[in-house]
């Protein structure tokens, strides 16, 4: 589903964010990207979204080389990738249902389809009773559920999550991880950048550790710290 070959990203000014990264993520896999701040996790996610362009190397997403994708096709790539961020990125003046519907409206889905899919996904994330609330009327965990709902409403084959539990307390984080796990079980590939030791250790999924832009470890049922893999 996702393949990176010798990917390097050097920002203007010479900062090497990602260096010679090679990764192969099959369809339906759940992968944690771990590592300290500045290790290149977020840059990797931005490269997969084509928010940044690679300096060297090739990235394939769903069989397509996205490094050669013309700019006008980038929106079509993004329709195949759901994104969840630490700061939720919700629109404060739109209700829960409108925030989720927004993702379908901007890609031109008919109103009836929007209505049906929004209802379904809000039920999936457990917010079907709060469709008319505004983001400021929700807890952090609920806001992140809205964000997950918006990312998944279009049923993308890939979900990219950048520190989705970074602003949440441990109890709420567990709820979000259950939700992401449930989405993963529908066949969606999930790539999640995180600092959260407890979550990585509890989930026991593939762990790719980054340090200084390089992959230092790639374990199939790994933990956050090295040397304690089972």
């Amino acid at each position: 589903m996702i393949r990176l070959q010798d990917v390097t990203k050097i920002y203007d000014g010479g900062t090497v964010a990602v260096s010679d990264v090679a990764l192969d993520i099959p369809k339906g896999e759940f992968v944690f990207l771990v590592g300290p701040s500045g290790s290149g996790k977020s840059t990797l996610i931005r490269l997969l979204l084509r928010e940044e362009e690679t300096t060297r190397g090739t990235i394939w997403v769903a069989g397509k080389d996205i490094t050669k994708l013309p700019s006008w096709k980038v929106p079509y790539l993004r329709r195949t990738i759901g994104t969840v961020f630490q700061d939720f990125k919700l629109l404060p003046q739109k209700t829960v249902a409108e925030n989720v519907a927004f993702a379908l409206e901007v890609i031109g889905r008919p109103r009836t389809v929007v209505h049906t899919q929004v209802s379904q996904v809000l039920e999936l994330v457990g917010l079907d009773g709060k469709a008319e609330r505004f983001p400021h009327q929700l807890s952090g965990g609920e806001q992140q559920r809205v964000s997950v709902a918006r990312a998944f409403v279009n049923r993308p084959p890939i979900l990219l999550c950048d520190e989705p539990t970074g602003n949440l307390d441990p109890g709420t984080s567990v709820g979000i991880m259950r939700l992401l796990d449930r989405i993963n079980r529908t066949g969606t590939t999930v790539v999640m950048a995180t600092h959260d030791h407890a979550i990585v250790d509890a989930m026991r999924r593939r762990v790719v550790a980054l340090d200084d832009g390089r992959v230092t470890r790639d374990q199939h049922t790994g933990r956050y710290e090295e040397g304690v893999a089972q």
Partner: protein
Amino acid sequence: MTRPIYLFREALVNMWRNPMVVAGAVLAVFVSLTLALGAVVLGEIVRVNTVQWQDGDHVIVFLKGSADGITLESHIGLENEIADWEVVESTRYVDQTGAYEEFQEIFANSPALIREVDPASLPASIRIQLSDISRWRDVQLRLIDKPAVRSVTAQGTILEGISGLTTGLNLGAFLLAVIQAAAAVVLIANTVRMAIYARRDEVGIMKLVGASNWFIRIPFLVEGVLEGLLGAGLAVATVALIRPWMADAGSAVDLIQLDVADGFFWRRAAILVLFGGLAGLAGSTLGLRRFLKV
């Protein structure tokens, strides 16, 4: 149909959310285009008034009479010859009786002078209107050596002055209109940039969820067009309201006409409104250029 309505609604929501920015843009366009339309109307007023002054006899050819051995046939022959010249618009023959009547009209307030003048002493003349007044010297030179011609007078320097003034004022009005139109485009571009800045989070989310560039751009383009049309509409309304007042003021002065024809005004007004819309489109396109890279 859903998509165009959605995009139009988004444009209206943009405008509703930033009323001060929108009001600023509309007012700026309004002021610019009012001045631009004012300049166009002013140019027309100058043209109309100078055309009035330019009407009349540009060159007067005073003719020799029977005392000099010149017959009426020679007069008519010369008039026919002049009338065939390319630069001549029309000619009019004024015989001695006509000249005396004209003299009586001009000096109606001086009966003593009229009594003193012998009608036979006033020469017949050919009055010439030129199609191109700048060529009055050529006409004068061609006529001066004709046997039937006593003298030639032309209002040359006055005509040149009026012609120069008209050209200068028209050029000034045109430049003012161009500058104001360019200002309108820049102001709309600035407003759209501010609107995008105000909605940068939303635009960022739209990009993340895969909205095409055109889907993001269209509401801003519609917003620019609406602002341009509103500003231009207000400008037309303002100048249309001022027109009757100006016409009244002009009617108080005999020599000057401060109004333009309805047809002229409304044709220019329609062009201005169209320009307002296009300026809005151009301004918002400029405003969008840097902000919406993928």
